[in-house]
Structures are given as structure tokens and as C-alpha cells.
């Protein structure tokens, strides 16, 4: 399984996240001293004027623990270029190929590798399919005070106890 988009990819039961930073500073010192990092991704959808199924907001979040590897283009050009390409396409802008640059940007790429067993995610609204993942536009939906039916999730949990 391979997914690529923005500054990350999911491959071989691992989450790879790419970040970039300057070649000096406190952050770099800390990474060198202890490469263990924790990642937090989140998005919040607030709709205080439009209560939906008893909720005034919804969120998605992912927490991942991993180890960062500091990539210097002079030592590992291939991985540097891979991270560069993923990061520089993140807003769908046209990429300036690394090889066409007069000089390599004066930065390091950080490759953070997380085992999927160290990745947890959470959603306020229940998710059962891919289509459930994006936020609902509650303002376009009929008024609904009925709580989500999570009886299937409760049954599933009980069956595992």
C-alpha cells in the first residue's frame, strides 16, 4: 500500500512525514540529542449556531510517535529530494525541480518514521467509511436532533471484551 500526498506517505505499515528546517538552532540540537518525536495533526469544525445530532462541533485528529532522521542533501540526496518534492507540492504549486536550482536550499529535511502501531486517530463523529472522513456541511443538512446510532460500535466493543 502506498499513499503519497503533501509532506507524508503511508507505506509498508509505516507513516513517513517530511519536515524541513534550518541547519542550525535549538530544534536541531534537540533532534540530535533525542530523535524521538511526537506528531499532532488536527482539524476542528465548529458550528455553534447549528446544533447537529446534539453536537456543536466536530474534529479529526491524529497522534503519531516516531523517530526523526536529519537528511542533509550532501549525504543523502535521494531522500532529500523525495522529501523536498513532497513538501514543495503541498499547496499544488508548480514544483521547481531540485536539480534545476542553482544551489541546494540551505536546509535539512527531517524524515519522521512512525510504526502504524504508534499512530492513533480520533473523530467526534463516528467514521465507518471513507466518505465519513471529511467534515459534514451541517448548515446544508436538515435540522436533526437525533443522536448518532452507535449501537453497532457498542456491540463490536462488547464482543471484544
Amino acid at each position, binding site marked *: 500500500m502506498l499513499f503519497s500526498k503533501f509532506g507524508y506517505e503511508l507505506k509498508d505499515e509505516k507513516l513517513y512525514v517530511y519536515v524541513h528546517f534550518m541547519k542550525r538552532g535549538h530544534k536541531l540540537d534537540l533532534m540530535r540529542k533525542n530523535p524521538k518525536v511526537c506528531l*499532532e495533526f488536527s482539524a476542528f469544525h465548529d458550528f455553534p449556531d447549528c446544533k447537529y445530532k446534539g453536537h456543536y462541533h466536530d474534529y479529526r485528529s*491524529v497522534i503519531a510517535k516516531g523517530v526523526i532522521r536529519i537528511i542533509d542533501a550532501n549525504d543523502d540526496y535521494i531522500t532529500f529530494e523525495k522529501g523536498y518534492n513532497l513538501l514543495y507540492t503541498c499547496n499544488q504549486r508548480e514544483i521547481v525541480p531540485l536539480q534545476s536550482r542553482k544551489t541546494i536550499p540551505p536546509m535539512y529535511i527531517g524524515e519522521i518514521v512512525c510504526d502504524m502501531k504508534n499512530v492513533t486517530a480520533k*473523530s467526534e463523529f463516528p467514521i465507518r467509511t*471513507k466518505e465519513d*472522513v471529511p*467534515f459534514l456541511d451541517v448548515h446544508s443538512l436538515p435540522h436533526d436532533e437525533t443522536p448518532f446510532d452507535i449501537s453497532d460500535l*457498542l456491540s463490536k466493543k462488547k464482543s471484544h471484551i
Partner: protein
Amino acid sequence: MIHFEREVTDPIFIHEMLQLFHHVNVGMIDEDGYPYVVLQVWL
């Protein structure tokens, strides 16, 4: 997770979720033992 019905474990769903995010906070351990968290923006 206490609210187990909110937990998402399927990598397919996690991948879909990651596409919603525009930034990531990276937490490290500072010299004094406190977390040191920096923001990485993807947009």
C-alpha cells in the same frame, strides 16, 4: 481510548484524515524535560 467509538484505526481512514490537515505540530523533549513543540505548516 475512553470514547472508543471515536477511535479511528483503519489506515485507509487515517490517510483520508491526513489529507484534511494543513499543519503538524512536532513535539520534542527539551533539555529541561519539558515538551518543545514546533509548528510545521504545509500550506
